[in-house]
């Protein structure tokens, strides 16, 4: 399990704008695609968000992470993180088990 993840202050998942009770994805590319199709955007976290969500978060292998904010059409900001280890590249998400597994963050740049 990731450490300090999911952050306590993160909005509930899935986004209410999607109108569904469940949304999970296997990797960051799929997640972004699904959300972009639903009208989401993404942006760099603010300093406060970095502190609140990402600074202390670690993947299940203990790697540090970099964060990104997924912004719903209603302006709600959802955190997602990718571990910095070049061979692990785990993605930390807001649905159980809260990570997507090794290499799930590969092939994607913001």
């Amino acid at each position, binding site marked *: 399990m990731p450490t300090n993840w999911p952050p306590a202050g993160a909005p509930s998942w899935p986004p209410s704008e999607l109108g*569904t*009770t469940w949304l999970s*994805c296997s990797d960051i590319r*799929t997640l972004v695609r*699904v959300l972009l199709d639903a009208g989401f955007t993404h942006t760099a976290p603010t300093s406060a968000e970095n502190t609140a969500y990402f600074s202390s978060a670690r993947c299940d292998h203990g790697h540090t992470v970099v964060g990104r904010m997924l912004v719903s059409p209603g302006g709600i900001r959802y955190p997602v993180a990718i571990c910095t280890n070049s061979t692990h590249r785990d993605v930390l998400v807001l649905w159980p*088990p809260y990570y997507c597994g*090794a290499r799930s963050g590969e092939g994607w740049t913001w």
Partner: protein
Amino acid sequence: MPPTLVYNTTFSHGVISSSGSGLFNSIVGSPTIPSPYNYLRATYAVGGTYVSKTLLSANAVLVGRFNVYFEALATGDSHGFFQMNAATGNSLTLFFYPDGPNLIGGYNTELSFRGDSYAQVTTGQKYRIDFKIDGTGKTFDWQVDGHAQTQKTFTTAATYNGFMCGAWSGGDSQIVRISDIALSQTAGDYPLGAGAVVGLRPSDDVNTEAPGTNSLESADGTDISYASNKGYQYLDENPWTSEAALDRIQGILNTGGDSDHVDIAFADTAETTINGVRAILQYASASTSANLGACVIVDEDATITTLWGNPTTRADYSETSAFYKSVQLPTPAGGWDMAAVNALVGKLGYYTDGNPDIYWLAIMLEVDYVPATGTTYNEAPASSFSSTPVCSPGTFVAMSPSLAAFASTPALARAVAADLVGSVAMASTPALARAAVADFYNTLTWPSTPAASAIGGMDLYNVLTFASTPAATMAYFLGIFPALTLASSPALSPSAVATFYNSLTVASTPAAVMAAIGNFYKSLSLASSPALSVVGGSDYYNTLTVASGPAFSTVTFKTADGSISLASSPTFTAANLATLLAAISLASTPALARTGNLDILVSRTMSSSPALSTSGGMDLYNSILLASTPSLLRSAILTAVGNLSLASSPALVPTSQASLLANISLLSQPGISRTAALDILLAITVLSNPAFAASAPAGGGIFYKTVQENIGFRERTLESEVDLAAGGKEIIMRWIGRIWNERDKTPTTWDRTDKGA
């Protein structure tokens, strides 16, 4: 050529999870995989209920096949149920459209379309969809149950890398099942056609395994052993659970197990036509620290395919919940077949870092195959069918009971059955088989069947030996013809039908069959095929043995005939009907049938077809053995004759009338008939008919006699005389009678003469 699949599944693992991307890449809402774990079930909910899967690579061409089964249809909005996901360009979604006739259609941002009648769907029935989308050629081809739909084109180039399926983009309830998905990226694989996917779970260990000591174990710490603790039993859950349960093989710590492995055999398949095989793995670890292990599939060529890590390049298994990997296996050198599938072995272990413990939770194969005879598709009972393209007549007979369910069978199965029927040597096929074929055709919806199918049906009929076919069978066949859209196959259909009718032994054909024939003729659009249709009709009537054909056959013909525009088919009008009537063996025809024929003649508008009416009518009368004809019928004949415009057919009519009257036993006729006969004679302008007149005495006298009736001991004769000197207006009728004495054979006679003007 066998297809080259890049993906196949029917969800036989039973798990909904996006973890590890081995099963799905995204899950929205709550789709399920219910027992018996061979289809995905999606109940529409706000936000959608679906899964998606992304392929390893995008490609301009995506070819696919899947089955869709509607438990409940949307009643308000359209619902998507399958989408070809675009990596670039626009995805294309197949929808169910509830408005109108419940059609399947498609949509992307550039086009919206609906299928034809074969794309009309209902609940409780499985439909097979084949598709090919070409993002370079910008075309979309698709089929429903093997029936090609109109190709669609779009304008934006695209590449495709996966699919999603379920129920979305609607506003009311739709419950859909998706199963037997197969995908290819080879254009020539379209259409993939009938197929099914079956899951093969572990069934044994292979005695090549080397599980080591304190290395590969079951969850209780017991070493895996081919002799005493086989590993397969810990990997064969059905369905897979989604937890790292105790039912597992574990690789503990790192005790030099880099060459230790457990070898797993899978349940054998009996299928012989294999399209592709996909392997799936469920795994986890005791904790989240990195570790390294492997799981591979080895085929009959000893080719190793990595499922998750291999003995050279191992993979991290460090997940504390169940994760999933899958891989499409490469086609062996000898191609996929039953032996190739049954030779597949899963090998797991080879771990160099077993800290934390690695858990192999479950492993299985999903095999896409073409079902063989007797093998049914999966769970939906209403649509179970076999799809062997060709089989022997004997096999066909064995199959025939299932044909009764064809009304609810997808079009593909019907097409396959049609192929089958075409290959059967029907002449040597027992009546039972032919009856089954008839049942089959009877259930086809011919109006919506393309011309090719109709041609197939005709070919079938041509090869049938109808003489030995039960009446019920022929009735079935004939019931098909009215439904044919002859306009779409003008050349073939009428001629084939005519050929068919010519082959009928109508003598043994019951009334219902002939009624069907009549209905067929009524349905013909003669205006569009005048020569052929009418000739065919005449051919038909020529072959009739009306003796066993009751009145309706002629009545039916009359009705049909009434729809014929005689002016546009003069050949038929003048000649064929006469030939027809002449060919009827009225001697053996019951009175009722003859009445029907006469009704035909009487109903004609004689003035518009004088030649036919008179000649045909006369031919008819000539052939009638009036002696055995009831009085009522003769009355009708005379009525018809009275309507003839004899002046326009001088040569024939008087002669025939004379022959007619010569054959009438007027003694058995009531007065009215005799009066009618005399009226006929009055109408004849004998002077203008030299052939007839020559037979009469010059200057008058008895020129015509109707003789005679012998009943028991009685003999009666009528002689009639026309006074030609009086212009035919003076008539002398002389009655001569004898009664024979039975004992001495001497007659008692009388002779009476009436004279009038």
